[in-house]
């Protein structure tokens, strides 16, 4: 460490490499409940803090208490930060994937349904779209629709029934794809 204070890159790299497994071990022993990622965060923060406070080290004293002191202070800081953030977070593991809690805004579900319906309508034939447009979207009566299409009421009923069946099929197919 004294050589590192003088700017010796090799001595510094050797010190840090040698300290790494020791720091991981000490961090795991001190905070056994922490995840591997948290332990690695603590070790990295310790190394960064050591780098920024090299001038505080007194070569007459052993280096281990110095390193462990940094680990204790930085590790405690990280744990405090994690605990503070935990209050604002919600665990997602126990939630169903289609819960509206996962939505980023209120109309997202409605928007997704509308997009699916438009896609299914686009997959239908010209005649089916026309019939559904008249009877389901514009909501004309069968009599009014006959004058627009020139079809008989019976033919319109059959065409409408088949169009709805095909739309259902298209929607189901879209859902299967998802």
């Amino acid at each position: 460490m004294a050589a590192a204070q003088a700017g010796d890159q090799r001595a510094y790299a050797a010190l840090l490499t040698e300290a790494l497994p020791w720091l991981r071990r000490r961090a795991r022993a001190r905070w056994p409940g922490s995840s591997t990622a948290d332990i690695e965060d603590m070790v990295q923060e310790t190394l960064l803090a050591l780098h920024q406070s090299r001038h505080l080290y007194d070569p007459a004293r052993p280096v281990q208490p110095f390193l462990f002191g940094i680990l204790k202070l930085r590790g405690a800081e990280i744990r405090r930060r994690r605990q503070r953030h935990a209050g604002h977070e919600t665990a997602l593991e126990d939630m169903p994937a289609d819960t509206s809690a996962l939505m980023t805004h209120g109309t997202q579900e409605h928007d997704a349904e509308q997009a699916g319906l438009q896609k299914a309508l686009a997959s239908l034939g010209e005649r089916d779209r026309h019939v559904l447009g008249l009877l389901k979207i514009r909501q004309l009566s069968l009599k009014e629709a006959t004058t627009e299409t020139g079809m008989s009421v019976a033919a319109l009923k059959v065409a409408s029934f088949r169009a709805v069946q095909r739309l259902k099929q298209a929607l189901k197919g879209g859902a299967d794809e998802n």
Partner: protein
Amino acid sequence: MRTEDLIAQLARDVAPVRRLPSPGTLVARWLLVTLPVLAAVVLMMGPRPDIADLLVQPRFMLAEGLAAATTVVSAYAAFCAGRPDQPAWKLFLPVAAFLVWLAELGRQCFVLSVQTNGAALVLHADWLCVPAITMTALVPAAAMVWLLRRSAKFRPTHACLCGTMAAAAAAELVLPLFHAADTMMMVLVWQMGSVALFTMLGALAAKLGLNSLG
């Protein structure tokens, strides 16, 4: 980033650093600035006429000794706070010193109140204490922040609290030399109250000052 890569990068960036002196040396440097300032304040304000009598009174000298001990112990704790290898118990030394000092003043107040049939308990407003403590402690506090700027890398709040406590205790050490409190209760409430107030507000300002000094 992998820790091994971080180590390689840190090793590449390593530059020679100037070692910081030990906490004891920093206390000596701080006293070197503070003591002449305190002496100058006493001379500027004019020592009390009865100062020669006071300096031979054991009661007065004990209170002054405890104020001096709190000053030195607090300054030492402030310089220890920023070092990761210094034990946490050292940070509580100023609290112990301050409590002993306060207890001794309380004891004196009680004894005097019994001897004078309650005259030592008389309390009235003494607004001079607050600015006197603040003005006297200002230079020691600024010197403390300057000396802490490189050492308060860890536990900066503790360092600032101990540092301002040292400055406030130093001011309270010299205040009785130029300003006479009418009763012991006045010392306890106004002078020690001013010390506590300066410590709290000073610690906040010191932390801001340290942040800006980087």
